[in-house]
Each structure stands twice: as C-alpha cells, then as structure tokens.
C-alpha cells in the first residue's frame, strides 16, 4: 500500500474533519486567488480599455491629471500626422452639457472630436458621425444607456446646452442622434454625447477654433511607438506625449497603489492563515493518532514512508481545497468586483478582478508550498516519536 493510498484511507476514515479542513482551505484559497486577481486586475483592465480604443499615443498639455487645452492643437495634430509611423490622429475636447428631450433634462459629458476616420469609441448601431455633414448640422453619437434614459434613439433630435463652468447662458443646439456606441471610459450611470469638434465649438459659443485637451494618435502596424513619442516631443517640447504603456505605468505608480498593497497584504495573510490552520489541524490529528504512528514504526514501517504518508495527507487536504478554491474564488471575485465598481466615477468597462494565467500558477505554487510546509512539523513529530513510550501510553491510556 503506497503512502498516498494510506493517506487517502486516513482522510476517508476521518472524513468529517477532512471535509471541514477542505472547506476551510477552499474558502481561504478563494480569498487568496481573488487577491492575486486583484493585484494586477485593475491595471490589466485599464490597459485593455486603453488599447481597445484603438489609439496608441496620447498627447496632453501637462504632466498629471489636470485637463488643460493644448495650445495650437490643430496645428499640432496636422504635424503629428506627418510623423512616420502615424496612422491617424484625432483631437478631443470634453465639456459638461445638459441634454433636453421630451423626458426632461439631464447632465452629460459632451465630447467633440476633430475630423478623422478613427473614433475613440466603438459604434454598435447607426451610421455614426459623418464629417461630410454641413457645418450647421449637428450629429451625435450617444452611449448605450442613452436611448432608455432619455427616450431618444437613432434618428431622434436632442437639445444640447453646453455648461463650460457649471452654469451657462449659452443657447442650446439641436443634434440628431446618428449612432449608439460604447465609450470605454464612460462611468457607470453617466452619459456621453459625442459630436464633431465644430459642433462642440458651436455649442460652446466659441467664435474661433478652440484647442483640444487631448490628441489621440494611432500608429501603423509595426511602427515603434516610443520613437513616435520622442518625435512628438521634438516637434512640441511644451506638450507631453505618452504611449499607452506610459499611461499604464503612471497609473500603476500613482493610481492603483491601494489595491496593489491590499492584495499583497491579504495574499500574505491568507497564505500564512492557511499554513497555520492546516499545520495546526494536521498536528492535532497526528497527536490523536500517535499510537497508530507508533504501531507503524513498531511494525517496521520506515520513517520516510510515514513522512510521505503524512505529506500526502497534507497534500490531499490542501490540494483538493486549493482546486475547490478556484471556482469559489471566481464567484467571489464577481461579487467583490460588483461591490467595488459601485465607486463613483469609475469607467463602466473597468474591472478590479481580472484573470491572468499567472494568478493561477502563483495560487497553485503557494498551496503546493503550504502543503509541504504544513506537513513539516507533524512529520518531525512522527519521526521523533519514542515508540516504546508511546505504545506504553496507549496501553495504559
């Protein structure tokens, strides 16, 4: 009978405690797995959102999060188009606005983009913006939830009043909805209306061409993004150009520290917790079975075999628990993700818990080590057991 078979028999014999131990490991393991998902989840999700927009470089006026107009943005956009490796350029400006329909008036984010084929949103319905429309006309692409919230779908007319400083006496402009789109960074519960830069400027009452706040650049396949970033820096040293990787790195350093830290802390704690609990359980279990161990030693069963049997007992409890932790962790992650996404202002498409194969590998490795470490002390106990004294105690006890 192999050590694994002996361990299995022991586990089955004491099935109530084994089941409870496995449940305990599964629950703690689910938490560990989720913390591993959380450790880079926000970053991975953010990077996916960025890359999904289809643009690889972003140009802003300043370092940091403050939105300021980029001086001479139109000229800059033109110059960037000429940089080798650049596929398309779009200039973006965003303002607060009120949209009025038959159902009433609500606040939206009004986004204006310069004429281009590329859009920083994904059209799901409708023809979308056509730059061939007359300058007096206003076309609008709205978010998915807009039709149900405002009662206005593709083809409908809406009245848009820009609110550049919260209060406004600007006249409303009429826009026709020409498309429904997914806006990657649109927050849950908030609405976005995208139109041309010209229409936005009309809504703002700008008599001259205003400046964009961000210029998005898509690169041709095979183009080196860092070289494009450097070229933009040479063109205009007063602006800041970032590749998507740069943006992600900045957010990694400044924006996600809390969740990274808490995932490290909780991962460490849950690992220590699992080790402590399994080791305690095994030790108490061994102490209860010292007579059995002494008999095995008296019969001539080698210490190494007994050690392997105890290791397999630990591995069975921890291994089955760790595997059960994966689906449990998945369910828990969905719940925790839903909870955390209640934070105000979070982009709809952003998730805190994102699966990466690396998380699975780390999870299994951690529990592999935990199984071995948890068995160490019970194995030491069994190896050092004074056979005669234990047998005597068993008979007397």
């Amino acid at each position, binding site marked *: *009978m*192999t050590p694994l078979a*002996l361990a299995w*028999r*022991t586990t*089955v*014999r004491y099935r109530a405690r084994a089941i409870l131990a496995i449940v305990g490991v599964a629950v703690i393991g689910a938490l560990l797995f989720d913390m591993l998902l959380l450790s880079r989840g926000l970053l991975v999700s953010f990077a996916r959102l960025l890359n999904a927009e289809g643009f690889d470089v972003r140009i802003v006026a300043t370092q940091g999060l403050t939105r300021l107009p980029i001086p001479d943005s139109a000229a800059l956009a033109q110059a960037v188009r000429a940089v080798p490796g650049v596929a398309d350029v779009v200039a973006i400006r965003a303002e607060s606005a009120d949209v009025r329909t038959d159902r009433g008036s609500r606040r939206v984010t009004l986004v204006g983009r310069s004429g281009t084929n590329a859009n920083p949103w994904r059209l799901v319905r409708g023809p979308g913006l056509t730059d061939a429309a007359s300058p007096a006309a206003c076309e609008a692409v709205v978010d998915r939830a807009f039709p149900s919230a405002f009662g206005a779908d593709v083809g409908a007319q809406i009245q848009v009043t820009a609110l550049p400083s919260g209060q406004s006496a600007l006249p409303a402009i009429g826009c026709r909805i020409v498309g429904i789109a997914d806006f990657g960074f649109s927050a849950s519960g908030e609405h976005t209306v995208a139109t041309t830069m010209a229409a936005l400027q009309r809504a703002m009452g700008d008599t001259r061409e205003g400046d964009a706040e961000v210029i998005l650049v898509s690169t041709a396949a095979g183009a080196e993004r860092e070289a494009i970033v450097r070229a933009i820096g040479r063109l205009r040293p007063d602006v800041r150009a970032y590749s998507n990787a740069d943006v992600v790195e900045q957010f990694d350093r400044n924006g996600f520290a809390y969740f990274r830290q808490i995932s490290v802390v909780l991962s460490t704690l849950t690992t220590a917790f699992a080790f402590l609990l399994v080791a305690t359980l095994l030790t108490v279990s061994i102490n209860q079975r010292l*007579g*059995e161990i002494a*008999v*095995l*030693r*008296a*019969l*001539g*069963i*080698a*210490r190494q*075999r007994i050690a392997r049997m105890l290791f397999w007992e630990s591995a069975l409890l921890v291994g089955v628990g760790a595997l059960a932790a994966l689906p449990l962790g998945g369910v828990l992650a969905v719940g925790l993700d839903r909870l955390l996404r209640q934070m105000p202002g979070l982009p709809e498409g952003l998730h805190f818990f994102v699966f990466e194969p690396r998380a699975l590998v780390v999870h299994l490795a951690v529990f592999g080590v935990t199984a071995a470490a948890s068995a160490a002390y019970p194995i030491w106990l069994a190896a050092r057991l004074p*056979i*005669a004294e234990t*047998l*005597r105690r*068993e*008979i007397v006890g």
Partner: protein
Amino acid sequence: MTPADPERRPPIVDVQHASRIFPMTAGPVAALRDVTLSVHSGEYVAITGPSGCGKSTLLHLVGCVDTPTSGAVLFEGRDVAALSEGDRSRIRLTRIGFVFQRFFLLPMLTAAENIELPQSEAGAPLSDRRLRTRTLLEYVGLSDRADHLPSQLSGGEMQRIAIARALANRPALLVADEPTGELDEATGDHVADLFDRVHADGTAILLVTHNPTLAARASRRLTMASGSILPC
C-alpha cells in the same frame, strides 16, 4: 517442520546484562536491572510477573523498539544499540513480528490490508503479497473476514488478524505483549492455540502474559519481579 533442540541453535536474541532506566521528574526509574536472557530459534518463552515488573520493557528491548541504558541486546549477533534507526526498523519489519495487547490494527485498513501492509513495506511483489495474505487468513481461520474493517471484528478476531500481520514477512521471532489481555477466557484459549501452531511451525515466540494458562503452554517460563528475572 519440527523444532530441533533449541539450545544447540545460536540465539536469535541475546540480552546481556541489560538495564533500562527512565528519567522521570520524580527521579529515575529502573524498569530493568541487569537482565540476561537468550531466545533461540524455535523456542517458546513466556515471561510472567506482576504489573510494573518490567516485562513490557524487556519485550521492547528484544523487539528493537527501544535500546538499553546499559548492557547489550544482540539480535542475530548484531548489537541493536549500535544500529541506526533505519536498520532497527528493517529488523522489526523482516525478522520480528509484533502482537500487542490492544491489537493495534490500523482502523482505516481492512483485515487483508492490515496483513498486506508489512509485506508492501518489505518490497514484496503484489502477487506474492496477495497469496501470502490469503494463506495467513486461512491460517488464522478468517478467510471470510478479509474485507472487514477492524471495527467490524470481535476482539478475538482482531487479535488473530494481528497475529497474521505479525507473521506476514516470515519473522524469526514473534514477540507478544499480553496477547490475551483484552480477551475473554474462551477467546484467549483460541488465541493460545494459534500461538501453539505458530510455534509448531518453527517460529520462535517470546511472550509476556498474566495468563497462567497461556504461560503454561510455553517450553520455557520465566518470572520477573522488580525489573529482574528471578532465578528458576
């Protein structure tokens, strides 16, 4: 096989002026004092004595479960104290068979698996193990209880399975510590009969017992008191 004159054969185990002292918080306790004893191949030796006289301690030294504080225990000519725990373990596995008062069958294994376990440890092939196990189950009269767990067996049945387990690797010496201590008289007699049969088949037996009927079946009877073997 019939036992030849045991005195002519070299001793399986030779205890030479062995003492065993246990350090206790209240002071050291000498469980064995200067004991000399030899058990030869094919012998049937019974040791009797009051509780606490050192019988089990002597058995543990002979069975290579413990080592003497002073003196020597030679098993088949090898000084047990000088051996590594691994070597002692090997002796216990292949040369000695243990029978305990409380049976000590592994509760999670069936009767057959309990018998097979030492053979598996000794490296016997599966087919050999299965055959030997069947033979031993027949030997002890429990072929129909092979797949039963110890919790499903009576005390006498458990002890018979324990004897079968002790014989699994064809030991030179069977060591039994109060084998009928937890059994009623009738069941104890059945177990005693089994020991007779084992002895008749050539295995040396050293047993410790309070049971005078069991002791009377041995070819040599020794009495212990206060850690020493009393002169005959």
